[in-house]
């Protein structure tokens, strides 16, 4: 089984969100970058479990600069076979998807796995775009994945329930909670990661279809208004007359 896992870096979930340069850039000052949790905990770990059980390789791919190498090494330490970095700033989702799709096309993988979204941009775009560029099915938000020969069985929650899906390889999926459990890299893995291949390849040219022109912060929440636990009639009145939500 030949698997490709898309790895992105993301600011630690507890990072302070602030912007610089007249609110046009994310303020990286003091921000700790981690492997995007959906890419790491769910997509990468499930890919490793599948190849450990059935044989095969797990390659990671990242579109980014040398600043992304520490997060890529972390993915290698967790157990990926090798890594590819497309040497370019991740400009917009279409640009990133195009780079991944070109690499995947040239190297034919059985499954391309992404996390359900990155925790910074929450776009949930890459997997779907890559699937279209490869002309393959896309299973979004998968929470279970079993593979038997060329057939994969997947499960996911849908509004009001869950569904079981079947799809033949090759295909693309985005992984959500439930797919696997987080793995902490051990010392052996960390040592081995230093000598694993991290291949840097040039980006291909594509148009920049979208760009972020500025950021803003939500207006500050007004102070919480406390209501006495014995006076729920007052709460109902406030919800009706003041908040106007009922």
């Amino acid at each position: 089984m030949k698997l490709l896992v898309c790895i992105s870096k993301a600011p630690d979930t507890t990072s302070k969100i602030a912007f610089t340069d007249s609110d046009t850039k994310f303020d990286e000052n003091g921000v700790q970058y981690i492997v995007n949790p959906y890419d790491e905990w769910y997509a990468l770990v499930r890919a490793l479990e599948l190849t450990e059980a059935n044989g095969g390789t797990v390659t990671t791919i990242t579109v980014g600069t040398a600043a992304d190498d520490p997060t890529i090494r972390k993915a290698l330490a967790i157990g990926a076979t090798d890594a590819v970095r497309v040497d370019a700033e991740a400009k917009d989702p279409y640009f990133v998807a195009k780079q991944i799709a070109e690499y995947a096309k040239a190297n034919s993988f059985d499954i391309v796995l992404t996390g359900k979204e990155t925790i910074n941009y929450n776009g949930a775009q890459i997997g779907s775009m890559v699937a279209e560029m490869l002309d393959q099915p896309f299973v979004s938000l998968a929470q279970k994945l079993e593979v038997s020969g060329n057939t994969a069985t997947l499960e996911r929650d849908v509004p009001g329930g869950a569904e079981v899906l079947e799809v033949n390889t090759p295909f693309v999926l985005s992984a959500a909670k439930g797919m696997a459990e987080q793995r902490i890299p051990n010392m052996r893995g960390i040592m081995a990661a230093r000598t694993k291949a991290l291949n840097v390849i040039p980006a291909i040219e594509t148009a920049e279809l979208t760009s972020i022109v500025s950021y803003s912060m939500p207006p500050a929440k007004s102070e919480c208004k406390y209501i006495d636990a014995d006076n729920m009639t007052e709460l109902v009145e406030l919800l009706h007359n003041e908040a106007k939500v009922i």
Partner: protein
Amino acid sequence: MSVLVFIETKGKISKAAKEAVTYGSKIGTTTVITFGDADAAALASLGDNGATKILVCRSLSEGNDQQLTKLIAAAANDCSSDVIIVSQDQLGKAVAPRVAANLEAGHVSGAIALPDTSSGFVVKTNVFSGKAFANVSVNSSKKVISLLPNSIPPESTGGSAEVAEFNPELGAAGITVKEMKTQGEGVLLPEAELVVSAGRGLKGPENWGMVEDLATTLGAATACSRPVADIGWRPHHEHVGQTGIAIRPNLYIAAGISGAIQHLAGVNGSKTIVVINTDSEAPFFKAADYGVVGDAFEVLPKLNEAMKAFKASQN
């Protein structure tokens, strides 16, 4: 501008569909593309939200990403659409980026407002799990916008729309649904305007009756925090938060949930938040509009009674 709005019907016209059509009609002449067996009269009612034409593909009953992409792209080409609007629900998330890639269109994910066309085409979106907004400029001639639910109220224009069948060649579905496990009934969480949610403070699944009672009185959906779904007190599809689903209801009532940052990431788009907790230091109070320091076991039934009295006075 020519606008195409994709909607999923499942037999009835959802609020999200009306929102998307209203949003589209404020940008330009709006055509709707849909599929399945919704009856023509129900589809034509979208004219009241501003659509002028409804295209329906009757040959497709189950939505899947590849065939829907072909359907939407064919409709976009047929109508020379400049802007394509898709509601950002589960199906929309799978389909919209594909459509954008197919049309080489710039894609905006998580739109919460109408585009600003004073200089280019800029759309405000939710980023950093609702902790910030980004203004995304779309530089391509064709544009795809994924609209977050509850971003714009559906409007009634009094207009009407003609309904026409549209059955382009769609190829095969790559994905087969083997089994559907539906759990429970009631209001679906992602599109609910009112949500009653509870966490570990309720001490056990047997105590959820008071959550459900209040939800029934309000006509609200029920939700829960991550630990509650993880230990199996409630089904996973009710889990809201960073790793569950993100919701943006008008009213979110949280009982016995401390309000960890990961939980807030799933609910901070709510218009009004009510927090009920015994611990006055619970971090959730900082994000709340209304707070009740008290035991959920006493507060929820009282709130339910007060709500019932209010509902009765409204009739």
